[in-house]
């Protein structure tokens, strides 16, 4: 527990105004910190909120959290890098998560990941150069009855095969190029 003067100083800092950049997304971080009364213990919750709001954790964001919560930057960085959920690079516009849990594994999820990686020329855990598509894996999504499972842009698809997942991704990316072509003038 921190003493009250320190807590007040924090609050003053917060109340000074919105984030100077004018970026609305900072409000989500600020709200979370305020909800926890700027307790240092809330670091994990604040990181969650930040990632939810920004999509990833940049160095600047870590510095911001460090100064607001008065937690050493090294500690913020240490906590953020410890947990798998936090990512330090922005994800692609579309994201495919392949479950690598035991049930999915014995039903061949590794071949799906491999096939996607080759087909769309993207290393596992990375994003394509055009920033359109990310391929990531997850430790068990808990839909083991439907293994193997792929999550494409938040929608869960059960009983997948390399071919079926590739065609799902192709459909989504095809729509993306259509939009691009339509959007181009003349």
């Amino acid at each position, binding site marked *: 527990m921190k003493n009250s003067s320190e807590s007040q100083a924090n609050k003053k800092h917060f109340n000074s105004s919105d984030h100077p950049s004018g970026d609305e997304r900072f409000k989500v971080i600020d709200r979370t910190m305020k909800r926890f009364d700027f307790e240092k213990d809330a*670091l994990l919750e604040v990181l*969650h909120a930040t990632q939810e709001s920004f999509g990833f954790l940049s160095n600047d964001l870590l510095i911001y959290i460090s100064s607001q919560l008065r937690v050493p930057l090294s500690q913020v960085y240490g906590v953020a890098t410890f*947990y*798998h959920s936090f990512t330090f690079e922005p994800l692609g516009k579309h994201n495919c998560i392949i479950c690598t849990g035991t*049930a999915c594994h*014995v039903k061949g999820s590794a071949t799906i990941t491999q096939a996607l990686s080759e087909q769309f020329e993207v290393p596992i855990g990375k994003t394509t150069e055009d920033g359109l598509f990310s391929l990531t894996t997850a430790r068990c999504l*808990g839909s*083991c009855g439907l293994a193997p499972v792929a999550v494409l842009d938040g929608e869960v698809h*059960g009983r997948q095969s390399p071919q079926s997942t590739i065609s799902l991704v192709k459909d989504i990316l095809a729509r993306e190029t259509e939009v691009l072509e339509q959007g181009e003038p003349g």
Partner: protein
Amino acid sequence: MTLEKLEKMAQRERERQEKFERRVFCCISTACLSAGAGRTINALQEAVDACQCKENDVEVVQTGCMGLCSRGPLVRVEDKSGEPIIYADVDIDVSQQIIAKHVPMGKLKDESVSEDVQEIREKLKKARRRKGLEQRILDTNAPFFAKQEKIVLQNVGHVDPEKLEDYLAHGGYSALGHVLQNMTPEEICDEILRSGLRGRGGAGFPTGMKWNFVRKEESSTKYVVVNGDEGDPGAYMDRTMMEDNPHQVLEGMIIAAYAVGASYGFFYIRGEYPIAVDRIRRAIRTARRNGILGKNVLGTDFNFNAAVRIGAGAFVCGEETALIHSVEGKRGMPRMRPPYPSTSGLWGKPTLINNVETMANIPPIINGGADWYSRIGTEKSNGTKVFALAGQLTNTGLIEVPMGITLREIIYDIGNDVPGDAEFKAAQTGGPSGGCIPTEHLDTPVDYENLNKLGSIMGSGGLVIIDTTTSMPEFAHFFMDFCVDESCGKCVPCRVGTVQIRTLLDKIIDGRGEPEDLNKLEALCHIVKATSLCGLGQSAPNPVLSTLRFFREEYQTLISSQEPT
């Protein structure tokens, strides 16, 4: 709110439910949602609306897991005039067939209904004539259902997880009311001790004993933590419990808090379980609004509040000291024990940490009594265990069986054998901390001691079946990959040992193995097991050791087949 008021709420809800001629339940647990249950429940509701039947003719209810996740979405129809019927693989078409069959179509009171409703009515008329609905009916007398014994999951699949009234109508919070009025904390701990309940997180420590440790600590502040950081790949019992009957877990937690003298509690839930987080939060809010949480719980002088903390994808945080660090917003690394969390836990205060399933066992034990509970199961492992049955089986899903059932019954009766041409090879229990059990040991009764003897563990309840198409060294490698990734890096045996074990496995699988490598591998496994700091490292070699024990010839074949000729 007092207990009497809660009872009135329960009574009102029971009366409301009884008015309905029939109720249609649709599972909205994660597994069924992934299979399209969201569309199914909407289609059911639309069809019911379009029927324009009499008031109290039918109600569509969202509910939790009915067990057979591989056949989802599942829908159950409870009709006053007959036995409940469960339908499997219910898509939009089938849901219209179900409504057309069970619900009498009313006359249109108002001719000016929208075109959509007219269209659905036409579809329902066609659906009535369509055949094939019988094939979707699940036989509830089949071994999958008949061999189970539901205590923890008793109300899962029957109550609406987002409705406190529904839980109350099923007898919810009566155990809490009973202990607050009639039992001292000491009596509760004794009751739990006598019931023989053991920790369902995997280690199997007697729950009553743990409660007594915390109860006897003298401290003005104590905490209760529900461990919902279900990290084992292939396991989703705790998630189902939190998603499908959150109030039962919460009730167990409040009873525990009263028994040990805690005034604040945390649910630590895996970040990958957004629906569970949402439903537990909702349960906490409703409980608080109705006087079940907060100041003067149910009108007594007991105060207790709870909050949710979300994990961030670290398997090691299931270990209790690591979990404590994570709740405190730090890196989730374990520390030496003692001191145990019961003496020095969250912020240095005595803390009770129990798994979700353990907590969910508490209300039934209080309601049924320790004597009743201790008669279920085997001599040293009482009660039931929930398993997530997955992998190469015809029936996969969530099951609850009495301790002491054999693996053979689970796999061949409940799971209905391996599909296709392949044959059963091994049952993997306990995830990356457990082992593989081969055919010759299938008649072993499932309990804590027997699984340990086989080099596996009960674990939190993941049970993955593999068939003859899986190579065991490769399977062991899969788990070692997991442990290398998840090792927190604090202690050397785990950080370095797991990497070295994996390197040896790589060498063997790639065909560069030498005969003495198997002995090296075994020796290394024993060192990591004996010297690691926490449960993760101590159990990480189990998958390798158990496959070496039962499937050694597969390793040997890999080594000998690659020797130069």
